[in-house]
């Protein structure tokens, strides 16, 4: 039996090649994902372990203490460090100081991207954490050491003067040294600047204090022994101590969990590709069984049992699955390597280098997935093969596709579709998070329902295309009729495409709508031309607001600062603004009272007002953070948005009570709107400071949408995989149709249909099936996009459904192109068909 199965595999190479390809793609995706994530997390784990090489025990401020009052902050002082160093078993203790430090490249642009622009201290004369590659350790306020990666990117060398900023003013120290480091942030593309300890403490406003004390054990002392010793040596309850190994483990765990979510989403896409592949496999084997009806019947006639027939089909599937799994695994290793170098080449993230990890688990998963999926998909066709009666060996007709009634199927499909739709609709009415799983479940059920219903849907939908097809004359008419001839097969083929397009369309709708919401958020609320903030969105020195106000061309400006306070019975953040200018910088619709921020008059956003039951004219009792009490009057209620919400208070009223005078951002309006020259003037006035961002509205929305676009493009790439698999499915179905209809095609050729018309007929059938899948997919996608938008919309109030019609049209055109491409080979085969054989096919 095995030999028969093997022979069959070899006899239908071309057909099975497609199946192999479909399975292979899925397996490649799965194993590629596993290889990639394993490799990356392994590399991170190794590098993080290296990063803690010099830390045997880390001492950090006690976490159990209150931290709202700066006076009571547990302090890691020099005294504490010295006593840690003197603890038995300790070799020496390094005091660590950290903070935000922006370095500019030669054009004044920020290096390291804001959140990864780090600064720290170089400990002593030889810091084991940072081996110097060039130069000497930084000494004094005028010297700095920078990491080799940043130096290389910006082209800085020892002796260069560089521009940098810690909290506002621009500094121009000399590069004293260039060091290498395993620091995870730097490995991920960040920058690190080191000062001598005293300078670092001064710059980061931590004079005499450390953020962390790293203690290295003397030879022969274990980390736990040192931990115990330190526990005894240091004042109890004020500090936390953790071993380096523990830190490394924690970090490894957090890396693993962050890789986990990425792995899960990648595997989900692989799953989709495989799911689509199942249809193709099932179709292929159905076709092979149909083609071999006579042969199988003969086997039955000469005495093969039903089980033997089924087994021979399954064996065939096993061989195909094994071949596909092995090639898929190999391709997957390639994909994993490719993905790693792709990620490494992005300048936003650098991945630590390490060997490609192909774990036994990956190999096992790939093989199991490939083989199991193939054999399962071949199960039904295999059973159908067993049902071929021996007498079929004598009859001359091919096994006709079963004309079992679709009533049961349609009923189930209708029920599922209805339930899914209802669930989705119900989910969109629920509040944010609780609606998510409901919509998700509904979407899954609806997809399954539509899936089951596709044979029923194929007739009316394809009939709708009839007027278009009529243009192509007989070929068009025949194509239409052929495409509804075997509704099950058409449905299975179209479904594969449908799934891919549903996801692509859904994502596009969501992304498009979100994009518009973001644009609106930035545009609708703001009259300001520029928003000035720190690159890492930390506090901005009040000097910045003063400098901006004094810059030529600026007609209005207002800093925005936050201050906690108790208002009425609950805690709120008061937002300090320039009461005089704020009205010209924002365009906030007022629903109650008037927009007046001056003295005790404040405005409140509608959400807060609604929650608290405040109205225009209400007087509020306030306790500021410095403990002083006062009264504020609600002058008006405005419609808040994501950029501006809360209680807006005049600076003059708020400033005297603020403990932290820094601003979150400064809104700026200029005489001639957003123009390059004014932006330049602003940047010049701020000293071309790399730490300060001057953004116009477009910059703000572009900054947000960049992440979006990147994500969307990645997803498109992944989904393309599912579409490729779907194309293979269309090819398969057409090949099957052409085969089954060879007699008809032969007759048509005989009575005068020329080759190009035959080709056109097959091509049109393909296009019709593809478009059918495309229309279903786009329809479902828009619906899901809408539903997901409802959930998002409950949180972002500028969110509104945007259906990118042009894109949808492009998707449908793409579906048609898929159809044309998929028809290439089957159409050629149909046109080349030997008429005489076809006529006499018996």
């Amino acid at each position, binding site marked *: 039996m095995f030999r028969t199965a093997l022979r069959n595999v070899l006899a239908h190479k071309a057909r099975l090649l497609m199946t192999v390809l479909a399975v292979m793609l899925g397996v490649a995706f799965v194993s590629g994902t596993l290889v990639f994530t394993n490799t990356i997390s392994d590399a991170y784990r190794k590098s993080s372990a290296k990063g803690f090489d010099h830390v045997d025990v880390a001492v950090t401020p006690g976490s159990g203490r209150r931290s709202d009052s700066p006076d009571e902050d547990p302090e890691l002082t020099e005294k504490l460090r010295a006593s840690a160093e003197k603890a038995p078993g300790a070799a020496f203790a390094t005091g660590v100081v950290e903070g935000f430090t922006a370095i500019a490249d030669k054009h004044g642009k920020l290096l390291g991207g804001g959140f990864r622009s780090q600064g720290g201290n170089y400990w002593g004369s030889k810091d084991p954490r940072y081996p110097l590659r060039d130069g000497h350790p930084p000494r004094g306020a005028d010297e700095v050491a920078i990491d080799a990666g940043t130096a290389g990117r910006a082209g800085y060398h020892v002796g260069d003067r560089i521009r940098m900023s810690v909290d506002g003013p621009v500094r121009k120290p000399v590069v004293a040294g260039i060091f290498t480091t395993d620091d995870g942030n730097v490995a991920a593309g960040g920058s690190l600047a080191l000062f001598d300890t005293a300078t670092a403490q001064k710059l980061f406003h931590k004079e005499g204090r450390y953020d962390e004390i790293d203690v290295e054990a003397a030879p022969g002392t274990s980390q736990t022994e040192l931990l115990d010793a330190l526990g005894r040596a240091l004042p109890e309850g004020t500090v936390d101590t953790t071993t380096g190994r523990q830190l490394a483990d924690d970090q490894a765990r957090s890396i693993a969990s962050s890789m986990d979510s990425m792995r899960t989403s990648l595997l989900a896409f692989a799953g989709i590709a495989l799911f689509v592949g199942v249809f193709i496999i099932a179709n292929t084997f159905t076709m092979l069984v149909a083609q071999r009806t006579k042969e199988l019947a003969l086997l039955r006639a000469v005495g093969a049992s039903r089980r033997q027939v089924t087994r021979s089909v399954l064996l065939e599937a096993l061989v195909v699955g094994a071949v596909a799994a092995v090639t898929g695994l190999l391709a997957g290793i390639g994909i994993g390597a490719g993905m790693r170098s792709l990620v490494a080449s992005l300048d936003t993230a650098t991945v630590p280098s390490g060997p490609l990890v192909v774990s036994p688990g990956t190999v096992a998963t790939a093989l199991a997935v490939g083989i199991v999926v193939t054999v399962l998909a071949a199960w039904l066709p295999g059973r159908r093969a067993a049902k071929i009666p021996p007498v079929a060996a004598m009859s001359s007709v091919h096994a006709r596709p079963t004309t079992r009634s679709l009533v049961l199927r349609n009923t189930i499909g209708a029920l599922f579709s209805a339930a899914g739709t209802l669930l989705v609709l119900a989910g969109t009415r629920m509040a944010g998070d609780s609606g998510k799983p409901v919509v998700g479940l509904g979407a899954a059920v609806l997809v399954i329902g539509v899936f089951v219903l596709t044979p029923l849907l194929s007739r009316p939908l394809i009939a709708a295309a009839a007027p278009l097809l009529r243009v192509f004359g007989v070929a068009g008419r025949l194509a239409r009729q052929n495409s509804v001839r075997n509704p099950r097969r058409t449905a299975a083929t179209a479904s594969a495409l449908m799934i891919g397009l549903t996801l692509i369309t859904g994502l596009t709708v969501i992304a498009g709508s979100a994009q518009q919401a973001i644009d609106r958020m930035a545009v609708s609320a703001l009259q300001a031309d520029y928003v000035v903030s720190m690159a890492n969105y930390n506090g901005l020195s009040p000097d910045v607001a003063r400098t901006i106000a004094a810059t030529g061309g600026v007609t209005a400006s207002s800093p925005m600062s936050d201050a906690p306070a108790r208002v009425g019975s609950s805690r709120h953040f008061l937002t300090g603004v320039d009461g005089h200018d704020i009205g010209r910088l924002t365009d906030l619709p007022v629903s109650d009272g008037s927009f007046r921020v001056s003295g005790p008059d404040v405005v409140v956003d509608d959400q807060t007002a609604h929650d608290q039951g405040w109205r225009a004219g209400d007087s509020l009792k306030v306790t500021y953070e410095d403990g002083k009490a006062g009264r504020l009057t609600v002058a008006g209620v405005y419609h808040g948005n994501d950029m501006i919400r809360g209680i807006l208070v005049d600076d003059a009223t708020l400033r005297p009570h603020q403990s932290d005078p820094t601003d979150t951002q400064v809104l700026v309006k200029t005489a001639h709107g957003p123009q390059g020259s004014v932006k330049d003037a602003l940047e010049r006035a701020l000293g071309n400071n790399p730490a300060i961002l001057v953004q116009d509205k477009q910059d703000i929305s572009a900054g947000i949408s960049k992440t979006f676009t990147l994500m969307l493009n990645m997803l498109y790439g992944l989904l393309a995989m599912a579409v490729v698999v779907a194309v293979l499915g269309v090819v398969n179905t057409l090949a099957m149709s052409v085969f089954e209809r060879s007699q008809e095609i032969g007759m048509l050729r005989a009575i005068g249909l*020329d*080759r190009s018309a035959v080709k056109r007929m097959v091509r049109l059938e393909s296009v019709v099936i593809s478009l059918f899948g495309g229309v279903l997919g786009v329809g479902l996608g828009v619906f899901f996009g809408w539903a997901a938008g409802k959930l998002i919309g409950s949180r972002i109030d500028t969110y509104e459904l945007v259906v990118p019609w042009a894109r949808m049209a492009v998707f449908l055109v793409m579906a048609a192109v898929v159809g044309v491409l998929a028809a290439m080979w089957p159409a050629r085969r149909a046109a080349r068909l030997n008429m005489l054989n076809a006529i006499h096919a018996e």
Partner: protein
Amino acid sequence: MTTTPIAGRATVVAARATELTKVYGQGETQVVALDHVSVDFRAAEFTAIMGPSGSGKSTLMHCVAGLDDFSSGSVRIGDTELGTLKDRQLTRLRRDKIGFIFQAFNLLPTLTAQENITLPMDIAGRKPDKQWLEEVVGMLGLGDRLAHRPSQLSGGQQQRVAVARALASRPEIIFGDEPTGNLDSRAGAEVLGFLRNSVRQLGQTVVMVTHDPVAAAYADRVVFLADGRIVDELHGPTADAVLDRMRMLPGGTGAPHGRGQAAAHRTV
């Protein structure tokens, strides 16, 4: 409609094969399917081609009908020489000048009887001649079956639809490949009767391949093939006469089967 005397149109040749040779394969495995066959098919005549299986009768029909290419010689349909035609031109020739009736009916299951009948015209993009269509449909008794699909028709009805399809475009010549092979004798007789009527009443030219002497008896003339050559010919045949001739053929009943055997080469 008057019966046209056969003799009156004898000079008009609808199709002619001259020294037609068809060879399959090469060297050792070479098989000569047609060996310098020359034959005329006269207009408004019903010709049957007979011969034992393997005699080349189907091959001859395929070559003359432009379905198959040939190794040497010449084939003309009317004034057109087939040997020099490209596939596209051959297709057009079949579409416009030739009608076909197949053993397995070969109707499109998705089309109604009416649509099947007009299919060749649809392919050509021509409007069918309504009056003619009605006449053909009326003659074949298909008037109440036009909206049916092939699966709703009996075998005989299906073959009548196929005959109507062949007649509908008024081709210069109709080729039938065992048109009654899949029919019971009553339905077969019916179809053959229609074919004969189309010759007698409508002046249609019909060439039919068959191995059934009863079917051949409906023809005006029977051409006998054996081993790729024309070996005999019979005018105004009866079933018995055909059967007698068949017995005498090489490869026929009782005769030794083999190729390369000497046989009369007759030009008709």
